[in-house]
């Protein structure tokens, strides 16, 4: 049995909903460009980072939540006023962050397994 909860959401509203339903929990969120029908994302860095992030998920703390969030199509993401950029202050995809803390890994940082592991295992 997994010791963390994994949630899959698409878009900003679903993301906020998932977060609000899990108040008080340690929430890790991974933001990726949308995947097509073949399961491939328009964002090449996201394609590269995902196996690295998934490879470290065994280190997620007990009782934590992992939200996998597809942010939208490339055109939506490129718009500097989209909700993720404006409200969540995301600067790029992929982004892995710990909700409510300044802890985050952006783009190439997500390629590094040791950084991902560090985020999952340290206070």
């Amino acid at each position, binding site marked *: 049995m997994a010791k963390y909860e994994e949630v899959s959401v698409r878009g900003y509203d679903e993301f906020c909903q998932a977060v609000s339903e899990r108040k008080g929990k340690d929430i890790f969120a991974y933001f990726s460009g949308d995947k097509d029908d073949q399961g491939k994302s328009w964002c090449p860095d996201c394609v590269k980072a995902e196996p690295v992030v998934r490879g470290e998920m065994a280190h997620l703390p007990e009782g934590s939540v992992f939200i996998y969030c597809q942010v939208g199509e490339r055109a939506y993401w490129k718009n500097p006023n989209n909700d993720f950029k404006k409200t969540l202050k995301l600067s790029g995809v992929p982004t892995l962050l710990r909700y409510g*803390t*300044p*802890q*985050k*890994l952006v783009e190439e*940082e997500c390629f*590094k397994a*040791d*950084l991902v592991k*560090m985020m999952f295992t*340290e206070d």
Partner: protein
Amino acid sequence: HNFSFFLSFFLFLGGKYDYDLVVIGGGSGGLACSKEAAQFGQKVAVLDYVDPTVKGKIKIWGLGGTCVNVGCIPKKLIHQAALFGTALKDAKKYGWQISEPVCHDWATMMEGVQNHVRSLNWGHRVQLQDKKVKYLNFKGSLVDEHTVKGLTKAGKETILTAKNIVIVTGGRPKYPTNIPGAVEHGITSDDMFWLKKSPGKTLVVGASYVALECAGFLTGIGLDTTVMVRSIALRGFDQQMAGLVTDYMETYGTKFAWKCVPKRVDKLSSGALQVTWTDTQTGGEHQDTYDSVLWAVGRAPETKALGLDKLGVKLNQETGKIVLATDESTSVPNIYALGDIGEGRPELTPTAIKAGKLLARRLAGQSAELMNYDNVPTTVFTPLEYGCVGLSEEEAEKRHGKDNIEVYHAFYKPLEFTVAERDASQCYIKVVCKRFGDQTILGLHFTGPNAGEVMQGFAMGFQCGATYSHLSQTVGIHPTCAEEVVKVNITKHSGLDATVTGC
């Protein structure tokens, strides 16, 4: 003792230590040194640990040392918050229709400041990991010149061996030792930057830049603030400039209790703090109540728990700091130290960082360059900022003789102050030069807005051996305050009015 000898002997035979370099202290100097060393392929570990403040009132802070957590960074941000307060008042004269009263919310400001500090803690953590520096949240102490003991908060011990060890543990604010109630009821700068609630009416005891900067921003955000000074302000700095800084603060609402010494601090049933003090000039005793008492009476080097005496690491008897050679080595081979803990070193982040990097390069055999501690510029971020590089006028007189120096000076008015109808009496520039020959600049002093930004470029000129003639040959950028530095032409010797008039 036998064990460590055996261990060292064994290691000598084996020629293998756990690490090439163990750095004790994860502040400005420690982080710079460890990251630089790792870059050269050295195996490095950093031990960072924060003892809670005496009162244990605040939780300990993250990686980054004093500068990031309870020094430069939060200080400058809160100074900025205070400057906005003044700017809001000025703005009305520039046409902005701002409804009164304008209030300041401490909690909102602190949330922003602390979020930034935490992002820096995280950024350092990522950098260490990325550069393959081992980070350990242990309290480090020395067992011998190649062995460090690390202690976790829970008391668990780890032993690390290293070819070289660098001590970069910095300092902590001092509490006065002979004032009843000082420790129980007062706070220091370590606490100030983490307060959840506004400190309210505050008494700041001390006259160092820490005291004045804190008192300055507290006044700026609207709090009733008093500075209690035993003798002089900004000891070690040019005293004419120090006077301008405090005059400005007094004009803008900070109260000063000159030549006064606190005697005791008592907590009243209302929760307020009653401070009793002596006016050393009259001998009279006075009392007043405050919400907070901030001790800014000096900083003590963090050497007590390091085990330095056991190893014979030489300390300066008076200051307690570690005695260092020009290459940052201590009296014990393989043990180095830098930053605030070093005797005679400036207590500044940029010098600690630079010294740390140069030491790392030397230890990795990449360079022989020593840190140059001369010509270090600095800025005091009081409400009227004061930036300087080189000698104070007093020090220049002492070294060269009063008749061998020429002091060019000017009182100027920032253009922005005019419409805002602000008093600029303390905006001043002083260039201390050798009187004869090339008139080499010995010291440059500036009070005014953005003093740090103004001084940085001039510090480079100073480093290059700029003379008065270089200065006067430089064309000013108009309209700025900085241009008044290159235009300075009235000497103190002439006795002429040094007020700048018009363009």
